C-alpha cells in the first residue's frame, strides 16, 4: 500500500478543537468590501470599472493581465466608491477597489457549458480562468495555469489535498464534511481537464470523520478516486511532501509537480471549480477558520472576498484582552498582522488570534550543532548551515547548499533548542541569492 508518509517533519500541537466540530456559519454581508487587484501569484489585474459604477455580485472588476494572472470580481452588489492603494497584510500597497453594498445579491453569472461532462478541456479551462480561481490552500497560484498541462509533460495523477496540516486551521476539514458532493464533482471536472488516469484524496488521520464522509461519497457517486489517510505530520499538506507520501515520487529540485506527472489542488479550489463550472459563480467567497484562544467565539465562517477582517472578528465575539498576536494563516507559516482592517482575500484560510508567547523574544543562544533542524527539514537541507551562511553573507555557498529549495515550512525553527531564527535568516539569504541571480542575468 502506498500509505507511507514523507521523511522528517515535525509534530506541532494540533489545537484543532477550537473550531473542528463547528459547522460553517454565515455572517451578514458587510456594508463595504475591499477587493485587491492582486490576490494571486503573477501580474496584478487592471481595473475595468470606475468610480460610481454600479456592479453586480460576480461581475468582473479587474481584468487579468497576462497568462499567469487571474481576474477579480465584485463579491457584493453595490457601487464602486473608490479605486486606490491599500496596504495588504504584508505592508505592500496594492491597488484595491472599494465597493459599497447597496443590497442583496444580484448575480452576474459566468457563461458555462450546458453539460460539463461533454465540454472540452479548453472550454472548462476558460471557465476556470474567468471565474478567477486560484489556489485556495494559501499559494494563490492561478488554477487555470496549473490545469493546462504542457504536451511534453503529461499528467497521469491528480491529488486532492485535504491534509490541512497547519495547527488550528479547520476550514478544509469542514468543507470536506459539509460540501462533499461539490468537492468531488470539482475533482471530477479537474481530472477531466487534465485527462488524468488516477485520482487520490489525501487526508490526515486526525480527521476520521472527513475520511469516512469522503469515502462514502466517493463510493456513492461511483468515482474512481482513492481516499488515502495520511500520518499526521507537518508539513504533510505541502505539495512535494504530499506527492512523496501518496505516489512516492520526488519533485525534482527547481521543478514543479508537473515534472513528475502530478497536479495537486486544495479541496477549497475543487469546490470553487464546481461552483464556477456547474453554477456559473465566480470565486467571491470562501470559508475562513477564525480561531485561537484570544477570540471570544472561534468559528468557521463563510465570508465574501474583500470583507474587512475587523468586521469578521466582531462577528466572532471580538478579541479578548490578551490578544497580542493576530496571524493570517496558521502558526507555522502565517503572517503576523499589524492592521486588522485588511480585507480577507482568496487565499486567506484562517486567522489565529492569540497571546504572543513571551519566550520567543529571548535572545537566541549559540548553535550547539544538535542537528534537530537537520533531522526535521523535509527538504533534507542543513538549516543550521544555511542560516549561518546568510548571517555571514556567504551567499554563493548558501546557493550551493541549496538554499533556494527551502519551502519555508518552519520545521527548523520549531525544533531548535537554542531558539535561533533559522528560517528568518534563510529567508534573507533566499531573497539576496535571487536578487543576485537577477542582477547576473540582466
Amino acid at each position, binding site marked *: 500500500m502506498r500509505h507511507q508518509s514523507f521523511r522528517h517533519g515535525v509534530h506541532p500541537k494540533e489545537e484543532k478543537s477550537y473550531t473542528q466540530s463547528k459547522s460553517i456559519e454565515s455572517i451578514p454581508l458587510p456594508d463595504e468590501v475591499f477587493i485587491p487587484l492582486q490576490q494571486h501569484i503573477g501580474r496584478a489585474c487592471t481595473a475595468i470599472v470606475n468610480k460610481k459604477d454600479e456592479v453586480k455580485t460576480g461581475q468582473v472588476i479587474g481584468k487579468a493581465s497576462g497568462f499567469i494572472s487571474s481576474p477579480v470580481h465584485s463579491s457584493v452588489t453595490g457601487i464602486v466608491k473608490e479605486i486606490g492603494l491599500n496596504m495588504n497584510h504584508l505592508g505592500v*500597497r496594492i491597488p484595491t477597489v472599494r465597493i459599497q453594498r447597496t443590497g442583496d445579491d444580484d448575480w452576474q453569472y459566468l457563461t458555462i457549458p450546458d453539460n460539463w461532462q461533454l465540454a472540452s478541456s479548453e472550454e472548462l479551462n476558460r471557465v476556470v480562468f474567468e471565474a478567477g480561481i486560484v489556489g485556495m490552500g494559501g499559494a494563490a497560484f492561478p488554477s487555470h495555469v496549473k490545469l493546462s498541462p504542457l504536451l511534453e509533460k503529461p499528467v497521469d495523477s491528480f491529488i486532492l489535498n485535504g491534509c490541512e496540516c497547519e495547527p488550528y486551521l479547520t476550514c478544509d476539514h469542514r468543507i470536506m464534511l459539509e460540501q462533499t458532493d461539490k468537492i468531488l464533482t470539482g475533482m471530477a471536472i479537474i481530472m477531466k481537464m487534465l485527462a488524468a488516469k488516477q485520482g487520490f484524496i489525501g487526508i490526515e488521520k486526525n480527521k476520521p470523520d472527513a475520511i469516512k464522509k469522503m469515502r462514502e461519497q466517493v463510493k456513492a457517486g461511483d468515482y474512481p478516486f482513492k481516499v488515502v489517510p495520511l500520518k499526521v505530520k507537518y508539513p504533510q499538506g505541502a505539495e512535494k511532501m504530499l506527492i512523496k507520501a501518496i505516489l512516492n515520487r520526488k519533485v525534482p529540485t527547481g521543478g514543479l509537480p508537473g515534472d513528475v506527472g502530478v497536479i495537486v489542488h486544495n479541496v477549497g479550489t475543487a469546490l470553487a471549480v464546481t461552483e464556477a463550472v456547474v453554477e456559473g459563480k465566480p470565486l467571491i467567497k470562501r470559508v475562513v477558520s477564525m480561531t485561537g484562544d484570544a477570540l471570544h467565539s472561534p468559528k468557521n465562517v463563510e465570508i465574501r472576498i474583500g470583507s474587512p477582517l475587523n468586521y469578521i472578528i466582531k462577528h466572532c465575539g471580538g478579541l479578548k484582552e490578551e490578544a497580542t498576536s493576530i496571524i493570517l494563516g496558521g502558526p507555522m507559516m502565517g503572517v503576523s498582522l499589524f492592521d486588522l482592517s485588511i480585507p480577507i482575500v482568496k487565499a486567506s484560510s484562517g486567522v489565529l488570534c492569540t497571546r504572543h508567547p513571551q519566550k520567543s523574544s529571548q535572545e537566541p543562544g549559540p548553535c550547539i550543532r544538535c542537528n534537530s533542524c537537520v533531522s526535521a527539514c523535509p527538504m533534507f537541507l542543513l538549516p543550521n548551515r544555511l542560516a549561518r551562511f546568510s548571517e555571514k553573507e556567504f551567499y554563493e555557498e548558501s546557493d550551493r547548499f541549496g538554499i533556494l529549495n527551502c519551502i519555508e515550512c518552519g520545521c527548523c525553527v520549531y525544533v*531548535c533548542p537554542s531558539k535561533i531564527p533559522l528560517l528568518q535568516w534563510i529567508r534573507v539569504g533566499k531573497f539576496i541569492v535571487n536578487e543576485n541571480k537577477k542582477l547576473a542575468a540582466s
Partner: protein
Amino acid sequence: MEPTPEKMTNQSKKDPKEAFWKPEGIPLVLASSPHVTKNTSVVKIMWSVILALLPASVMAVIYFGRSAVFLIVVCVISSLITEVIIRFIKGQSLIIKDGSAIITGLLLALTLPPTFPLSSAVIGSVFAIAIGKQVFGGLGYNIFNPALIGRAFLQASFPVPMTTWVLPFVKFDGISAATPLGLFKFEKISTDLLSLLTGNIGGTLGETCALAIIGGGLFLLILHHADWRIPLSCLATVLIISTGFWLVNDREFANPLFHLLSGGLLLGAFFMATDMVTSPITPKGTWIFGMGAGVLIMVIRLFGGLAEGVMYSILLMNAVTPLINRYTKPQIFGEKPK
C-alpha cells in the same frame, strides 16, 4: 512604484494617533513565521545528559567511596568557576544557564582514576574549560570535546597518576591494580564478563559499571538528545573488528564482548562521541565519525602502546569532523544524484 496616489481611507478613519484597530492599549506583536516552537531548550538537553550520567556517577561513588565524590565535586566546581571567570573577562552574562560546564566537569571526573590527586584534577578542569572550550568561542564553537582535551592534557602532564588504578572497595594503601584492558594487553589475564558488567574492576570512575553507562546512554537516545548513529556505528565497528581478530587467534586477541564492555568505550561511545558540538552535522557524517572512532580505538587497543585508545580516537575524529561535514552533504529532496 504604483502610479495611483489616492490612498484608501479605511485606515485613516480612526484616530490618527491610534493607527491600529485593537483593544485599548494592547499593541500587536509582529514576528516572522513560524510563531510556535517546540518546548525544548539547550538547558533541557544539558540536564538530561547530566541525568543520564547519574547512574554511572552513583556506581563510581559506591565502588570508590569518598575519593569519587571529591573528584566529581572538585572537577565540577572548578569547571564552573573557570567558566564564570572567563565569561566575566569576556564581558558576557555570568549566569550560566546551560549545564555544559557541569557536564564537562562531570565527564572529566569520570575519566580519572579514583586515586588521582585533587589539585591536578583542578588544573585539568581549568584546562578543559579554558582551552578546550572558551578559547574557541564558548559553547557551540569548540572543535574538540572539552572533557577529552582536559584528560589528554592530564595524561601528558601527569602520566603516572593517570595510570595508577585501584580495585573497588579498597582503602588506599598503596596496592595498585590494573584495568581489565591493561591486564589483558600486558599480562594476558582475562576478566570475567559479569565483573565487567557490574563494574567490580579497576579503572577510571566512569569505566566500571557497564550497565549503568548503557542505561544512561539509552535514556539519552530515547530522548533524541544523542544521535543513535554514533554509538551504534562505533560499537558495531569495534564488535566487527574485535570479532575478526578473535576468530583468527583467540589467545592473542580478546573476545568481542570483552572489548565492548571494558575500558572507556561505552562511556566514550555514548557520552563523549555523541557530544553534539564536536560531532558531524550530517547523517552520513555521523556514520563515518562513529566507524572511524571504532577503527582507531581498535587499532590503538590491539597494536598501540596504550591499553586504551578511546580518548585519542574521539579527539582525532573531532579533528576531521569539519572535513567530514564538508563532504557528506545530504541529498536534497528531489536532487538528481551527481
